[in-house]
Each structure stands twice: as C-alpha cells, then as structure tokens.
C-alpha cells in the first residue's frame, strides 16, 4: 500500500480518500469517515447521528439536484448538497 501511495500524486491521493456523500450514486451504502466543517449545521448533523463510523445509504436526490435523502441509523434524513459535502465517506 505504501509503495503504491508514493507513486501517486498528492492531489490524486486526496481525491481517492476524500469522497463525500455527494459522490455516492443512488442506492450506495457507505461508512462515514469524517465530518469536515465546524458550523452549527455540522453540529446538528452529528447530533442527528451522522458521526464517523456510522453506516449510511444514499437514497436519492430531489428535483433540480437538491436536496438529497440518505438513510442513517434507521431513518431518512434530507439535506442539501452543501451539507452533504462536509460528510466524508468510504464505500
């Protein structure tokens, strides 16, 4: 793994690891790795259960591309792409 990492540029590495909710196609399961951002929405997002380690599922996007709906801890949560961008995931 280390050997492979060294041969990729830094930017590419970042892109591979920093996938966010908005990158997920509909129906995709993933696990939250980090929450970036430090505003009131981020805090509320975490209080609603979206914290590192939890598994989520991307359900769908609304008309015009916003908002999106995810499944987390057994319920459906809607948020804007803006908020979803601060949730880093890995599949």
């Amino acid at each position: 793994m280390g050997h492979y990492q060294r041969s990729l540029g830094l930017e590419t590495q970042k892109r591979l690891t920093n996938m966010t909710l908005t990158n997920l196609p509909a129906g995709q399961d993933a696990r939250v790795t980090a929450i970036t951002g430090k505003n009131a929405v981020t805090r509320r997002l975490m209080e609603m259960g979206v914290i590192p380690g939890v598994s989520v599922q991307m359900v769908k996007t609304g008309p015009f591309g916003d908002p999106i709906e995810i499944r987390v801890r057994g319920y459906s949560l809607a948020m804007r792409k803006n908020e979803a961008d601060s949730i880093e995931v890995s599949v």
Partner: protein
Amino acid sequence: MNDAAHNHQITIALAGNPNAGKTTLFNSLTGLKQKVANYPGVTVERKEGPWSVGDKTSKLVDLPGLYSLDATSLDEQIASEIIQGEYTGVSKPDAIVAVVDATNLERNLYLVTQILECGIPLVIALTMVDVFEKQKHEIDIEMLSVLLKTPIVAVNVKTGRGTKDLAAKVNEVLFTQPKSPLIFDSSGDEDEANGRIFARYNFISNAVQESVWHSDQSQHRFSEKIDRVLTHKFFGLVILVGILLLVFQTIFSWSSLPMDLLEQGFGAAAVFVRTQMPPGILTDLVADGIIAGVGGVVVFLPQILLLFLFISILEDSGYMARAAFLLDKLMSRVGLHGKAFLPLFSSFACAIPGIMATRTIENRRDRFATIMIAPFMSCSARLPVYTLMIAAFFAGQTVLGFISVGAILMLAMYTLGILVAVAAAFVLKRTLLKAPPPPFLMELPPYRVPNLRTVFQNMLTRAWLFLKRAGTVILAISIILWSLMYFPRSEQPSAGSEAGTTMTGAINAGDGRQTAENEPPPESEQLKNSYAGKLGHAIEPVISPLGFDWKIGVALIASFAAREVLVSTLSIIYNVGKDENEESETLIAAVRDAKKDDGKPAWTPLTALTLMVFFVLAMQCMSTLAIVRRETNSWRWPIFMMAYMTVLAYVAAFATYQGGKLLGFE
C-alpha cells in the same frame, strides 16, 4: 399528603423528537381537559393538562418536539429551556417523560442522554413497539433499561395501553433521590463539543447493540416504495401541485354552504337585535358594530377549519416533509427555506395561521422573510372583493369561447400575489434580512395513517387560537370603524331610525329597492357627513390617479381593517343596505350605475381591475399586523410591512390604471 399536593403541584414535562408520538400520547393522557395557550411573547403553543400520577394530579406539559437540548429553532429553544428549568414562568419539571420512538431508537435516545446529564428524574415512554416488531426486529426492553440506567415503559399511543404503567413508574421516580447526572466526555483529542456528541452516541450504540436485534435491513420499507413516486424528480412535483390544487378546491367548495349559513345567521341576529331593542346608539352599535364585526370573522371559520384539517392530515401522514423536500431548491433560489412552504400555503386561506406556522423555521431572518411575504398569498378575505368586481364588470365574458374571463382574472390575481412575494423575498434576503442561505436538514418520517383524534384536536385548537386572536382585533376595529361612519350624526327626521329599521327589514324581505327609492335614504347622507366620509374626501386627491373617487375612498379606508369590509361599505355608500353581499344583484347593479360627483361613471372595468390589483398587494388586515407584532416581538416589522405593502399596492394600482388609460381602456 394533601398538604404536599396543595403546596406544590407536580409538573411533568413530555419531551421527545418530533414525530415520536408525543402529542398523541399527550392527548391520550389528558384527554379533552388540556389547555392550550401561548408562551409569553411568542406564538409557540403551550399545552398543559392534568394527569393523575399515583394519588396526585400532576400538570403535564407537552413540549415542542426537539432533537437536542442544543436548540436551533425557537420551538426547540423553549423546550430546551423548560427542561433545564431556565424558562421564566414555567416551573422546572419534577420529572420528565421522554417519548422515544422504537423504530428510530438511536437518534431518539440522543436527547435522552442529554436529559440524563441534567439529573432530573426520567422515565422513557417507548412508542411504536408494535410497528418495530412487525418489521421483524426484536427489542429486550428490560436489558435496554438496565444499560441506559433509566426505567422504560412501552406504550401504545393509539390504544392507550401502557399508560397506567407509565403513571405508576413516574410516581416511583418522582421523589427518589435525584440521580447523579451522567457525564459524557470527549475522549481528548477531538473538539470538546464534538467529542461529547461521539461519547453520547457511543453510550447509545453499546446499549442498543446488547438489547436490540435488527432483521435483514435490505427489505424495502413501505414508505420507501411510496416515496419512489411521491418524491420522484418529476412526478413528485406534479403530484404535489395536484394535491395542493385539490386541497384548495375542496376548501373553497365545501366551505361555501356553511359560510352562507353563517352569514344568514348573523344577518338574522342583527335583525333580531334591531327589532327587539329600542332604536338608538346602543342598538346600532350592537347590530352594526358588534354583530357585524364578530360575524365578519366567524364567517371565515369553515375555511379555517378545513384548512387546518387538511394541514393536520398532511402533516400527520408525513407528506408535508416530502413537499418541503421537493420545493426546497426552488425556494432556496429566492432565499427561502423549504419549510416556508407550509406557512405560505396556509396563507391562501388566511395569513394569520400561516404566520403562526413559521415558528418551525430555524433561522430568525428566514422566518421574518417568510412572515413579510405571507400576506401576498391572496387570502380568502380578498375573495368577496374579487368576486364583486368580476361579477359587476367581467361577467359572462369568455376567451377562446369557453374560458371565462372571470376565472382568468382570479388566477391572474393569485399569480400576481405569488410573483410579488417571490420578488419581495428575493430583495429582502439580499438587503434587510441578509443571511447565509438557510441550511436544510430535515427528517423524512415514515408514512403513517393520520390519527384522526390527533388531527381533529389539532384542528380545533389552532382554529380556536385563530378566533381568539383575529376576533378580538377585528371586533375592536369594527367598533372603531363603525364609530367613524356613525359620527357625527347628521340631521334625521324623527322617523329616520324607524325608517332605517323598516328599510333594512324590507330589504331582507326582498323588496327593499322600492322603499329605498321613495325616501331620501338616511344611510348614505349619514356616511357622507361622517368622519369616515370626511376622510374619504381628504384622500381623494391621492387616489384619483388610481381612478377612485371619494366614495370608493371611504370603502378603501374601511377595508384597511379587514378586506371583506369593502363590500359591506360599498353597499352602504350606494344605498343598497347594510346586509348585502358580493353576490347581491342589487349591489352589483348599484356598482355599475354608480356615478362620481361630476356625473361620470365611478366604475369602469379598468377601475375594477385596478381595485383588484390594489387588494392583491395592500396590507389591509389589522389582525395580521397584530400577529406580526407578536411573532417578531417589535413594532418595527409590522410598521415596515404596512409601509412597503401599501407603497407596492399604490404603485401597482397606479401603473394598472394609468397604463390601462394609455392603452385606451378607459
């Protein structure tokens, strides 16, 4: 024992997430004995009721739903402060019943962990256990209770099963030693606040892991299947518009009969008063001021009730959240929140409940922006005005052979209101109420069959609040208006009052026109010389560029209290009698024939159109201003609303009339 009960009434707070079944539980525990009011200074509902716990009667308080004690909206703030005993005027609860939805366990338990940190005696009421188990999951309540260090009682909010056990358990915890509060600490290397959140969920996950078994999660839930259609990118919107139109249409068609009945009832009451009481100021005040004033509000009750009924059904079923989801993008382009949809939609019946509904919008500036534009949604009070104008000047005309001009004009007026609202929101959010685009974070609750009892109770309480609020203000204004039109008394023949009574009685009997033409009608003379009439003359120079004469001016002044008053005022001015409405043939004819002081017709189709445009945009409802004052907690906003809407209305009416003249429509 009795001393304790007298000295200190036990207060128990019902806390929990929205959609957890809290209100249904509250209703089943307190029944019809609940009292609904408002927390001082705001229009957040305050619901309390008696609940017997052990041998005492406690005061059960239904708090607004909240997700966390770290509040993000006004609703949540109040609930949070009450729980922590920091809300002046509400005593700190002696115990808390936390309503937890079993189908949504982990997130619901987050609030519970925060309450545990407060050290208040706590009992969990676990709801929807039957639904949970139907999904083939299992839950060991005993084990969960031990792991959470909190007693749990399963209740079925629909049937009421378990409520006695709940009361018994609450009684148990009431006077036990206050537990040392739990402490959740961050594990060190994270942001402290975040760390606490993680620690709480850690605690929750551990407890849930040991006591709950989830079946295969990948089976499609019923709600998800419905949502494939209802929140479909394209069909979802189409269905939404369809549902809205249907609700709209139903409200208007179902309410017309009760409204007619109510109108007749109040008319009969006025006649009764005039025939039973001796003629004089008091009789006139009661018949024309008070009965007419109260009647003017109550007549809208059928529409208000139906609106609240449909809103309750849509909310309870879970559809409202989907509507906000679908419309959010559109609304946020203008700077509004998806949740603004419900208040704005309600405003089509009446802006007062609509403005009250903005309390779910978290951000203060977004809330105010929604409040400021709500009155542009053409409310039902404008309908009599539109109807009268259309019947008098656009009746029977069609376009393309089958579409009535009247219907087109109605639609145009509604659309004008919506367009101006959108523009106003856009401007406001960029200037006065500038704020970062509102975040959108909203739960989409599973679809549920609405609980009829909750729905009806909801409908009745909100309608009652509307009546109290609008009623008192409109009543006061009606009396003031009545005085302006009544004083100073002009010289009348001594038989004048009787003639008035007879004339009104005769008009009610249907042959009034003849009588009115034979005697100099005292009504219009009275009006001419009254303070109201003088005011009408005074503003004539201002309104004549809009095509209005002083008589219309008097009606305009009167309608600034309440829009529908225009119709009754015009009736008086044109000597048709006080009790005519917008469908009366005589009033319609009178409007067509009305002449200005110089003999030219007072009304043309263009004037009628101008008046409608004015009514779409003008702020002509004292009750609305009163509500805005309460909601924004200052006089600045209602004054600003009055000013900017009046200016917009004037400019638009000016443009309509002058523009129409230029195009040759005079």
